[in-house]
C-alpha cells in the first residue's frame, strides 16, 4: 500500500503540469533529445568538426557539459516511471524494443561518463560512447515520444 502511494503521489505531481504521465514522459524525452543533439553538435565542434560554430574554447565545453547534465536530469522522471512503475514489458514490438533499449540506456551513460574521465583510453572510445548514447536516446524517443505524438495526441 505504501509503495502504491509513491506511484500515486508521482502521478498526482506530474498531472499538475501535464495531462498524463505518458504525456510528461513524451515531452521530457523530447527535451532530452534536443539536448542530446546539442551534445553531439558541441562534441563535434570540440573535436574540430563543424567549423561554422563560433569557437572551440571554453564556451563550447561549458555548453556541452551543462546540456549533458540537464539532459540526464530530464531523463530521471522518465526512468522512474518506466522502470519502477511500468517495468519490463513486451506486449508488442514497439514496447519490446523500447524496453530492451531502455534497459541499456543508463549502462551506456555510465560507461560514457567513465570514458570521459579516463584519458588513457584510445581516441575513438569517447566519440563512440557518446554517439552510442545519443543513438540510444534517439531510438527510445522514436519508440515512445514519436509514437505518442503521432498515435495518441500532440499536446501537453
Amino acid at each position, binding site marked *: 500500500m505504501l509503495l502504491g502511494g*509513491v506511484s500515486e503521489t508521482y502521478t498526482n505531481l506530474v498531472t499538475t503540469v501535464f495531462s498524463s504521465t505518458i504525456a510528461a514522459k513524451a515531452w521530457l524525452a523530447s527535451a532530452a533529445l534536443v539536448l542530446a543533439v546539442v551534445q553531439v553538435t558541441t562534441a563535434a565542434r570540440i573535436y574540430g568538426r563543424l567549423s561554422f560554430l563560433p569557437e572551440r574554447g571554453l564556451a563550447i565545453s561549458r555548453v556541452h557539459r551543462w546540456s549533458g547534465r540537464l539532459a540526464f536530469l530530464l531523463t530521471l522522471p522518465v526512468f522512474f516511471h518506466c522502470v519502477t*512503475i511500468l517495468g*519490463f514489458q513486451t506486449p508488442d514490438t514497439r514496447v519490446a524494443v523500447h*524496453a530492451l533499449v531502455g*534497459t541499456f540506456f543508463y549502462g*551506456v551513460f555510465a*560507461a*560514457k561518463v*567513465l570514458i570521459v574521465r579516463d584519458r588513457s583510453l584510445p581516441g575513438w572510445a569517447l566519440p563512440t560512447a557518446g554517439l552510442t548514447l545519443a543513438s540510444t536516446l534517439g531510438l527510445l524517443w522514436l519508440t515512445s515520444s514519436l509514437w505518442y505524438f503521432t498515435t495518441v*495526441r500532440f499536446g501537453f
Partner: protein
Amino acid sequence: MGRGWIPVLVGAVVVVSTFALAQAQIFEPSLPAASAAAGGDVYRGETVFQRECAACHGARGEGGGVGPRLSGAEVDAATVTAAVQRGRGVMPAGLVSGREEADVVVYVVSISTP
C-alpha cells in the same frame, strides 16, 4: 585485463541492475478491486483514453462539454463496460474493443475513484 574494460563492466552492471529493477516493478500501484477484476492494464488504458475518449471527456476525464465528467464520478467497471459496448448519448458503441476495452475500463475506474 586493462583499464579499458572498467567502463564496459560498470555499464554492464548498470544494465543488469536496471533490468532487475524493472522486473521488480517496485512501485506498481495497487488498483481498486473493480479495476483488477476487469483484467486490463491501467497504463495502456490511459493511452487508449487519451486517443479515443479525451476529446469529449477531457484529457484528465474532467468532462469536456460533450462527454460527462469521469474523474471522481465513482463509476464501476460494469457501468463503463456497458457504456463502451452499447454507447451512451452521443457516444457511439464499440469505440474500442478487446484488450483496449479492458484497459480503458480499468483506467476510467481508476480515475473515477475519489
